[in-house]
């Protein structure tokens, strides 16, 4: 067992973890942050994407011990309480989700993409989200959502989904 201390969505958590435990399992099982989900066992689907010190990572490809001392942001901490981050607003407005299982990862990947490239073209969005699989939407509306989020974010902070 190793001792770790990780800040998740603004709250600091300490605990003993098995060295082999993946960050996503620690989030889900040890501290009950079940908004982040698991879709595969080969690091292909991206459903588990979170921000680690501000950059997106697949939390199934990081050990919990590697997150020691880091800040993790999940879908649950992207906006305060019932507030909406522009990317969340855009996904609702553009119907960028159906079952919603890929959504936590897709949204976090989109947040990272837009922080790197605030005005992405369609093909930059498509390439940028290549590591996140969605089986429901055919990506059409996800791409629209990210483009719309870019508009919202360049227009300044927004309040609330329509």
């Amino acid at each position, binding site marked *: 067992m190793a001792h770790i201390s990780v800040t998740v969505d603004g709250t600091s958590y300490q605990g003993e973890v098995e060295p082999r435990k993946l960050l996503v399992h620690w989030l*889900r099982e040890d501290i009950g942050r079940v908004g982040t*989900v698991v879709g595969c066992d*080969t690091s292909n689907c991206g459903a588990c994407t979170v921000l680690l010190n501000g950059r997106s990572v697949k939390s199934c490809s990081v050990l919990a011990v590697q997150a020691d001392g880091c800040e993790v942001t999940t879908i649950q901490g992207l906006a305060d309480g019932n507030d909406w981050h522009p990317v969340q607003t855009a996904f609702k407005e553009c119907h960028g989700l159906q079952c919603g299982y890929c959504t936590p990862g897709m949204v976090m990947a989109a947040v990272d993409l837009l922080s790197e490239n605030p005005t992405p073209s369609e093909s930059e*969005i498509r390439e940028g989200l290549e590591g996140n699989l969605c089986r429901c939407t*055919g990506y059409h509306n996800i*791409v629209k959502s990210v483009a719309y989020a870019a508009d919202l974010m360049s227009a300044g902070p927004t309040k609330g989904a329509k």
Partner: protein
Amino acid sequence: MTAALETDTALGKPIRRKEDAHLLHGQTNWTDNIQLPGTVHMAILRSPMAHAKITKLDVSGALKQPGVVAAYGAKELGDLNGGVPCVWPVTDDIKMPAFPALAIDKVRQVGDCVAVVLATSVAAAVDALDSIVVSYDQLPAVTDMEAALESGSALVHDEIETNACYVYKMPCGDYEASRAKADVVVARRFINQRLIPTFMEPRSVVAAPMGMSDEITIWSSTQIPHVLRVLLALVTGIPENNLRVVAPDVGGGFGGKLQCYREEILVTNLAKKLGRPVKWTETRSENMVATHHGRDQIQDIEIAATKDGKILGLKVTLLANMGAYLQIITPGVPLLGMFMYPAIYKMDSYDFTCTGVFTNKTPTDAYRGAGRPESTYAIERIVDELAAEIGMEPMELRKKNWIKHEEFPFTTVAGLTYDTGNYEAATEKALAMFDYDGLRAEQAQRRAAGDPVQLGIGISTFTEMCGLAPSRTLGALKYVAGGWEHCTVRALPTGKIEVVTGTSPHGQGHETAWSQIASSILGVPVEDIEVIHSDTGRAPYGMDTYGSRSLAVGGQAIKAASERLVEKARVIAAHQLECSASDLEFVNGSFQVKGDPSKSQALGAVAFEAFTAHNLPPGVEPTLQAEATIDPEDFSYPHGTHLAALEVDTETGQVKLRKYVCVDDVGMQVNPMIVEGQVHGGVAQGIAQALFEGAEYDDDGNLLTASLADYLIPSAADLPSFETGSTVTPSTTHPLGTKGVGEAGAIASTPAIINGIVDALRHLGVTDVAMPASPQTVWRTIQAAKGGAK
């Protein structure tokens, strides 16, 4: 354009989804999120072999491992080792071998369950699997359908002495006579390859004895909580009224969660036996071998026509891969396609034969479209081949043979009566959106110039039958269940509305769309309506969600129940307003005395009166609710025209989908935004079959594409945006005018893509391309055609 409803109600509007707030904030309730005190976790020892005798199985070592509570093989489990049910015995003499949850003496597919361990953590359960001693005596694997039917083949099930599960024939008219009359007969063999549904949320199930009663609650990531409850009761012997099945947030299904899986049976039985919650969540790698697969047919198709392009007859001979066992509707899937091979075309005769074949592979069952993608692929491909054979423009050939707008209702050669359709309108619109003539001109140019990158245009003018459906028809096909749907609508004393539906969404947006239907009738804002679903405790009656049935069938029940509620309320309101019920009109959620708008009572006020019951008219019972159970008259028949432009690099085999246009006619649209989303997702899955996906096995029956690293579902970078349009020809057999939409895209798009690739390469002698059309496959096809031409 969209749902042209002359109404100021919520119906037909692209209202943003109610479902999204919790999904976008991670406030979700996936089954795997459920953590009950005292839970034991189940891990499964699965067969690494496709076909083998189990010569030794000893689970006792696992019991000594830390955290382990119990371990079982089939012998230890005894009577609790339930059998997986099949509810569709398609013929009287179908062979239906047993499918025990834990394999008894023999394994028949990679992924067969051999033993289970239950432990206090997932990790402890998985670790303890290593301590189970098992040995196998490998048997020859049956992997090829044609070889499986030869005498002397190894047998998947020794006791039935054959690998043929059933033979189903449906001769319609005299095909031989059509053939004799024909100037042209074109025959092709198409392979509709095996696919893996690959919904993003892996399956998960939790079962818990509830303590204060005999109830066992089962949370499962399923499309069919209601059907599952009945089947689990039958399989486990636990009284149905002690079972409550809940499908919480469910992350996609596409048919893959339309099942009563062995893991659901095991978890339920073990929760009862151990008297504590039992939980199991599959890994993706388990999912690839243990969740049912789809498609997997060899299709021998023959079409007979005159030289000027009149189709006379069609002959379809199928081998359909059942896999190792029959699951819920495994044998019936090809029959859902059987009626649709003639599709939109008029012809004199149609001859259908299907042989179901057992192999040592994962069982097949419903996957988005279930039978209709296979039939649509075959007919749309063979029509293109016929066009090439007689030198006719492929769209012209279609126009010549399709059912004309004015000919509806039309009874097809397969015996179905299509109520409505307008293939002309959808096609005209699609051709215009696509710039068909412009692209044909570019194609001619590139061909003349010998451009290494050739342009192909792929057409698919599809229809399908969906909205499963009339119970009588299903009964005639030997399907054991019905096809009705139920709804209860309640007006609560506080004015809020509950719509209790028997449909079970997993991404389709029922909460939003059903609210829109009820709102349009009750005049209550969409926000004040709560849709209750997917819990047999709260929504006790239903037939669940599959076969594009939820709106087509369930929507009618919502409409009928809402209307009945208004009629009950009208009687109460008339009593309160001291007038006769016929003097009242119901406008915007309020009963108004005709001619005196000052005298009115809102529905919410009526609901409160019905609650207090202080002043109800004689004979009227307290509470304001109404229910309806609807069994539709017929299936619904959506249709559409899909067009694809593809650039094919003849030097590398690389295919680029440049443009995809589709115009779908799904009848009246309750929420056009959701309709479009369903089309996008379906189209993407159909394109994926054409270009990317295929479950590959080796000769020993090992699944080679057993993870998301090997089974290629497309990413955003692999697909273009789609141009969608619609025409609205309302269904006449469904009171809302709606048809189904969930499967249409997946049914339509696959042949559009392959027709387009063949169209790009036909001048090189190419007449078919196998799916998935990877660069390697396309390149080899070009080389073979060149070699053949010389």
